[in-house]
């Protein structure tokens, strides 16, 4: 287990129902940015949620291991797991408009983990929050600390959330489609900011997205998912040069090119879909619950 985050054969399913993750394995090294790519429903978000222990109640992990910093999270008691995740990992959520508590001041929402979980003094935590807000280039950080979420724009709130995620120097950050809910103009800034912050802090980053364009900008490696199955795991450079799996290739072909918008969209061919579906079915051959 050399990787900082190592997921081994993780299977998850709706309780008593169909499987959502099919023996997923993937590693994220310290300082690595790994993209999780797939269509909606491919299970990419589920992986992030499983790592952070926030799977929906209806979903349960049925098999596998999640090693975080040398410990298998799934073998810990719930209280210990929660504490451990809180101390070593953080989430950059999808929608900045709903991810901040409307009735609590921004400052408290950044410092709460430092004070309550990690035992910092309030003064130190506040200084740290200010430092981070400066780092993510929020103007007037002192005022923002005292503000309520509704007083800030969407882009500002996403910056606050990024500051909050990095505040405790976590070793792993899960970014769950962090730019999907933002305006296109803001998207680029936020993407660049996440990349800069990651580089500066050396954090391992699990970047969940459906957008291969985003992957090419931020990630070093990526895993392509279909139907809860990892169909390809490779470096970004190799992927864009020559994707190994036919589904990956089709996905890449289906993505509009920024360089050549006139090329148009190529939907994933039916034959490719059939082939990858057969793979998913094959993975389920030994699955007892159907």
């Amino acid at each position, binding site marked *: 287990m050399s990787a900082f985050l190592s997921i081994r054969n993780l299977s998850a399913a709706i309780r008593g129902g169909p499987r959502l993750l099919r023996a997923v394995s993937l590693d994220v090294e310290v300082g690595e940015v790994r993209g999780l790519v797939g269509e909606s429903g491919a299970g990419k978000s589920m992986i992030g949620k499983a790592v952070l222990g926030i799977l929906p109640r209806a979903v349960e992990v049925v098999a596998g291991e999640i090693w975080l910093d040398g410990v298998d999270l799934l073998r810990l008691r719930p209280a210990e797991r929660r504490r451990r995740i*809180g101390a070593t990992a953080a989430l950059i959520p999808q929608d900045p408009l709903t*991810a901040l508590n409307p009735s609590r001041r921004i400052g408290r929402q950044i410092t709460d983990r430092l004070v309550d979980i990690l035992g910092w003094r309030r003064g130190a935590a506040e200084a740290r929050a200010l430092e981070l807000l400066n780092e993510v280039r929020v103007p007037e950080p002192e005022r923002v600390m005292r503000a309520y*979420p509704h007083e800030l724009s969407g882009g500002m709130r996403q910056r606050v959330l990024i500051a909050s995620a990095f505040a405790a120097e976590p070793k792993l950050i899960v970014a769950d489609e962090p730019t999907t809910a933002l305006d296109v103009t803001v998207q680029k800034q936020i993407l660049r900011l996440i990349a800069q912050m990651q580089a500066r802090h050396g954090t391992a980053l699990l970047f969940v997205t459906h957008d291969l364009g985003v992957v090419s900008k931020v990630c070093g490696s990526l895993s392509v998912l279909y139907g809860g199955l990892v169909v390809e795991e490779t470096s970004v450079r190799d992927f864009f040069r020559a994707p190994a799996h036919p589904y990956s290739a089709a996905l890449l072909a289906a993505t509009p090119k920024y360089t050549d918008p006139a090329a148009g969209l190529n939907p994933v061919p039916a034959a490719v879909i059939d082939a990858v579906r057969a793979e998913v079915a094959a993975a389920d051959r030994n699955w007892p619950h159907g």
Partner: protein
Amino acid sequence: MLLRRILTRLLTTLVTLLGVSVVVFVVIRVVPGNPIAMMLPPGATQADIDRLNALYGFDRSIAEQYVIWLGGVLQGDFGTSIQARQPVLRLVLNRLPATLELSIMALVIAVVLGGFLALTGTRLRGSRGEGAIDVTNGMALSVPDFLWGLVLILVFGVLWPVFHISGRVSPQYIQEFTTNFFLFESVLRLRLDLWLDLVSHMLMPALALAIPLAAIIGQLLKQSLKETMHLDYVTLARTKGYRENHVILREALPNAVLPTLTLIGVQFTFLIGGTVIIERLFSYEGLGNMAIDAVINRDLPLIQGIVILFAVLFTAINLIVDLLYAVLNPRLRHA
């Protein structure tokens, strides 16, 4: 904006109160039995009856009586009770504290009980525990305070007689009080013995009033809490390492509580309305008990006074809740 809202609300409140007084006045004056004749000894002559009728103004038309009565009310004169031969206002204000203390105690119990049910239900959501709480709530909700009162009398007054089920305070203590706010006074004077005696009398009627409201609070608050628990900031708090209880109390509760607060305002007036029969049931010497006596004795001025006081109380509570909501809302508008 807020000022204008306050002014219009005050105006409609005034119209409502006038309407209430007209309705009471008209309804009461259709009373067939002559209350004056009932007051006099059997040998009284028609002249005696006429004299008393004139004294209480019953010989005039309803409209005239109303104008005279309203004129008196505006000067703080609600007339004189036929039965007790004392000013109505004094009688009513003497009893008001008893009813207020009972209602507020019931409200506190309802909020604590309902809040507990909602939080526990949220904590146990999706499990059998939640189902049990839902069933309990449904039962408590569909049975009114009157029946809960009877059940409590049976259980805690007869089967397991631990509480008093009659009266407001034990007779030997009545002389002790200098105000009519017994419970309040016992706390201020740090008289634990008095306080315990009062609570032992009030707990059962207060609980009877509180049970249905607790169920309503439990249901609505749990529903809002569960909706809030799905929101992203709650999930984010989980990833920070917080315990479930902490997540519910600090992240979800403050954002889920507003609809319940509004509801409590309206329901509190219903609860006060319930004191009428509950006070009767527990022989509790409050306004409601006095009101029923007044109706039975056909004490017209007293009935009027009590109904108007109840109406003032109700509309005042609604007014306060409305204004409170207007003040609270801007900050939470984006919730």
